[in-house]
């Protein structure tokens, strides 16, 4: 089967981007919307066609999913090392195609309503297309460098979209922050990529992930495993660095600070980029290199992934408890859920059921994309109605916005892990996998599950129940263009859990069957329901319980509310240390010392010139004296000293 046509999947959005971007000021809103949606629709159809072909027609040969690669050389580094461009079709990339297409199409549709009347409508759609192009390219990348290239491109699309409202200072700051933090992480990624390229001689995923070569210390890839860098094998170091890149994009602690601020972008953007697709790129990256992570030095790098993921999910869940900005709550929730995925990858084994963590992670990525996008779009709908993101400005909206209410509830139940919604299945697999391999992480994640349920329902009750506020004009349900995607996603969120995911996605590309782990399911549902119940008690009607708890845990509350002051720490480091203590002195040093030295040379010359002007005294006798002295000195030097 020839999958060359899949190259069109990214190229169509690129074309749309160029058309809209170059004529951003000329194209009318309607045209832009239609062009954008149609373009993406085409890509979506192709994606689904590919998925269908791959999973059900040609992908499996002898029970193993094949990897299809189409590529061409893009640039040569050395005689052996080159960057290729192309498409790689394997289970996870196809799965990602489906996710990206679905969410992106929904967001496109939704944006037509949400962004209606905005001045930069065309620009917005151009950016969305650019993002889609980059994300498809990332997903289909055949090698590390290609993925890095598109990695950067999604970063810049994200930057452009967060800064979409470019006259708003907070949006500018957020876009800068997002870009620079991820850029910092990409610095690690890049070094990692270069290290891999140098020590293994290739960037190619297929070569790198070859499990046989990875287990053979004489293979070209493994030859340099013994070379150490900073205490670890270079390849482990490289993998950890690559993970740093992934952690940056996926908002893992401590590189997560950009994600909440990124909510300054229009809500559809948050749904698409900062909830469903781009932020999971880090997970995808680790999954992409999973065989390497797993086999190199017994998976030390993978352990790092697991703990970072686990810790991030916990800290994000805790912070989410106390936030009031509804999009930020969702952002921390996203971070927490990605932590889940990372953790799951981290504890996963390789073959057969061992690979449950991997499968679960991908599964959760899939389901999470659906319900988290739904949550964001729902939140967007709410914000659209009340013109505020703050929880305190909302309440009792269920009467005004029935569709939003229901779909939001479905999503909340899904994320809380209540069966039979999608989240239940994927989370169950994750917890089961964790239980098998790492008890500590299991318990952490179990608690997080409860916290998740609590803060999600705090949010839900806060918005749709509780006390009704005084609105400037009565909130109303959003137009069909917005509610239709909500409904579609709600349906998907409800039923996606039933997909037999492990049949399609597994580390060793051999499908296997999973079943629900009843004991673990019971535990997780239990704590989930408990969380919901507490939220019910506290927030369904306005009570003072929350305030009491707040004051009881005053110190802890303050720290959580302020996100553990991590932002402030960064600010301190950047503004106080890098800007004031390093950059400023550098600028000063340049102006005064380096430049000063050059000027000093010039000035000294002129000064000497001034000082010696007295020698030309205008007196002929002085001249004569100089003349005679010159003769005498020359004579003395050449007769007495040189001879």
């Amino acid at each position: 089967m020839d999958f060359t046509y899949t190259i069109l999947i990214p190229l169509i959005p690129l074309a749309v981007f160029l058309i809209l971007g170059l004529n951003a000021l000329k194209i009318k809103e309607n045209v832009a919307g239609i062009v954008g949606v149609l373009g993406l629709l085409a890509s979506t159809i192709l994606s689904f066609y590919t998925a269908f072909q791959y999973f059900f027609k040609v992908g499996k040969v002898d029970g193993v999913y094949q990897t299809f690669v189409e590529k061409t050389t893009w640039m040569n580094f050395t005689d052996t090392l080159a960057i290729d461009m192309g498409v790689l079709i394997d289970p996870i990339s196809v799965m990602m195609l489906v996710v990206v297409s679905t969410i992106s199409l929904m967001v496109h549709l939704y944006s037509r309503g949400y962004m209606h009347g905005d001045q930069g409508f065309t620009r917005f759609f151009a950016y969305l297309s650019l993002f889609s192009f980059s994300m498809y390219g990332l997903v289909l990348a055949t090698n590390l460098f290609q993925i890095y290239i598109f990695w950067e491109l999604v970063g810049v699309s994200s930057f452009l979209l967060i800064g979409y409202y470019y006259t708003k200072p907070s949006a500018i700051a957020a876009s800068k922050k997002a870009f620079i933090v991820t850029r910092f992480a990409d610095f690690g990624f890049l070094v990692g990529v270069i290290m891999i390229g140098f020590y293994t001689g290739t960037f190619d995923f297929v070569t790198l992930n070859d499990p046989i070569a990875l287990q053979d210390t004489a293979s070209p890839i493994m030859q340099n495993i013994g070379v150490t860098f900073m205490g670890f094998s270079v390849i482990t170091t490289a993998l950890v660095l690559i993970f740093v890149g992934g952690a940056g994009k996926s908002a893992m602690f401590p590189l997560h600070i950009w994600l909440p601020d990124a909510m300054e972008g229009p809500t559809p953007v948050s749904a698409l980029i900062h909830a469903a697709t781009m932020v999971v790129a880090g997970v995808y990256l680790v999954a992409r290199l999973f065989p390497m992570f797993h086999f190199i030095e017994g998976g030390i790098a993978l352990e790092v992934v697991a703990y970072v993921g686990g810790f991030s999910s916990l800290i994000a869940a805790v912070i989410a408890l106390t936030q009031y900005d509804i999009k930020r709550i969702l952002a921390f929730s996203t971070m927490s859920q990605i932590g889940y995925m990372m953790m799951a990858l981290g504890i996963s084994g390789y073959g057969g059921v061992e690979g449950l963590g991997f499968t679960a992670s991908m599964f959760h990525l899939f389901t999470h994309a659906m319900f988290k996008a739904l949550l964001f779009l729902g939140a967007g709908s709410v914000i659209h109605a009340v013109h505020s993101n703050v929880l305190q400005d909302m309440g009792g909206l269920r009467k005004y916005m029935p569709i939003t209410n229901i779909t939001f509830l479905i999503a909340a139940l899904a994320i809380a892990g209540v069966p039979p919604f999608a989240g239940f299945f994927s989370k169950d697999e994750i917890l089961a996998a964790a239980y098998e391999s790492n008890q500590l992480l299991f318990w952490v994640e179990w608690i997080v599950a409860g916290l998740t349920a609590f803060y999600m329902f705090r949010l839900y009750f806060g918005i749709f129940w509780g006390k009704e506020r005084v609105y400037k004009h009565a909130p109303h349900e959003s137009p069909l263009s917005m509610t239709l995607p909500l409904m579609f996603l709600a349906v998907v969120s409800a039923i996606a859990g039933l997909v037999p995911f492990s049949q399609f996605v597994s580390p060793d590309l051999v499908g296997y069957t999973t079943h629900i782990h009843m004991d673990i399911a019971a535990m997780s549902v239990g704590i989930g329901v408990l969380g919901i119940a507490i939220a019910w008690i506290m927030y369904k009607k306005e009570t003072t319980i929350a305030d009491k708890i707040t004051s009881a845990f005053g110190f802890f509350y303050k720290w959580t509310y302020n996100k553990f002051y991590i932002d402030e720490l960064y600010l301190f480091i950047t503004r106080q240390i890098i800007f004031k203590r390093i950059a400023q002195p550098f600028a000063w040093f340049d102006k005064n010392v380096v430049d000063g030295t050059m000027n000093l040379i010039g000035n000294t010359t002129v000064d000497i010139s001034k000082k010696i002007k007295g020698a030309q005294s205008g007196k002929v006798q002085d001249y004569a004296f100089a003349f005679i002295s010159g003769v005498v000195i020359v004579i003395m030097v050449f007769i007495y000293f040189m001879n």
Partner: protein
Amino acid sequence: MDILSLFVIVPVLTVLILVFAKDLKQARTIALIGGLVQLGMAVNLLFEYFKERALVPTSESPMLFVKDYIWFENFNIHYTIGVDGISVAMLILTSIVVLAGVFISWKIKDLPKEFFVSLIVLATGVYGFFISIDLFTMFIFYEIAVIPMYLLIGIWGSGPREYSAMKLTLMLMGASALLLVGILGIYFNSNADGGALTFNILEIAKVNIPFEAQKLFFPLTFIGFAVLGALFPFHTWSPDGHASAPTAVSMLHAGVLMKLGGYGIFRVAMYLLPLGAIDWSWFFIILAVIGVVYGALAAIRQNDLKYINAYSSVSHLGMVLVALLMLNKTAWNGAILQSLSHGFMTALFFALIGMIYERTHTRDIQKLGGLLKVLPFISAVYIIGGMASLGLPGFSGFVAEMNIFVGAFQHQDLFHRVATIATISAIVVTAVYILRVVGIMLMGPIKNEEFNDLPPSTWFERYGLYLLLIPIIGMGMAPLWLSDMILDSLTPFIARF
């Protein structure tokens, strides 16, 4: 027909015709035609080069279209010209930037004729430099390229123009003091294997100059050229010079003239004195890496757009030097690509800065804001330029930097590793200062009422910008043909190491 000498003859003819121009209109028309012809020649040369190269492989003849005319017989000074892939690329860069410079100077008011004459004299020097194989000729063209800067900055500049012009000229001429000694040293050692003394680079490259001489003359030649390439701590002419220079001059200077430094280092210092290069590389790597990081950090705190761009040039060209000193093909390829890429990018930036300044009469980013709203085209191009500058894939900067990083990483010892990683870290700092400008100047609220109705970009400004954008994106999207052409031309160089 000698298609290379045309690169000198055509500009000279342009100058001679320009002398008879009566007013701005005539002057710019002549300059434009001259520029177009030069661009046409450069593109034609590229195709001719490919045709010829297909017939004559690099191993047989590193340079093509070689023409040799005896000049000063007694010194064995020849006017020898020829090109390889590197010089072809540089010639294209030059012709594009010159043409863009003419577009940007479309409305120059004061002494238009003289302005274009000086500009094209400068271009002549640059063209000549890139086609020379003879060191003496090369040195002459080098100085011809540098000297018009004095008049260009001094007459048409702004701010402390007299000071900046003088500083720039003296520092560059002071550097050529070292260079001259270096060149003479090479010349007088060019008979080390018993042949005749010669200035011909290709001939000298066959000679093994004694190690002691290489050790002595490499740093001289290197610094001589590197001052033009803004090597720390000899870069200080650059910020002041750029800040005072008129737009087109900044473009040409940063875009093309500073490339003479890297090119010269490569073609002369390293090609002819390889042992010296190996011996000294550690020292200059330190300076160059300092330049990379330091330039980027210094750029963070500047408020004058031109200073930001000047320091960014220090940083970017520092990378060129680092890459050259890494002594392998990949890094060299990166260095040359970076030269080209920086040439286009920085010219683009200076053009944009010029346009913004012309409209708002300030270059202080703190006084500007929200330009995206009032000057959408210029701002959008600025953002694209910024993205290219911070090494975003799809633009030329990325291609160049990746080659540099991968090449630099080929060294396994700790020193090179640290240097490499420090260099790579600059991409983060670059992002900071680029986004700072974008955030403050292009985004945000409009800070000054007067800025609400600024005139939109004119056709000639747009042409100038397109001219520079096309190669930036072209190189970024499809680097293979260019980088392969350069890689191929690097073979004789790597053979010396």
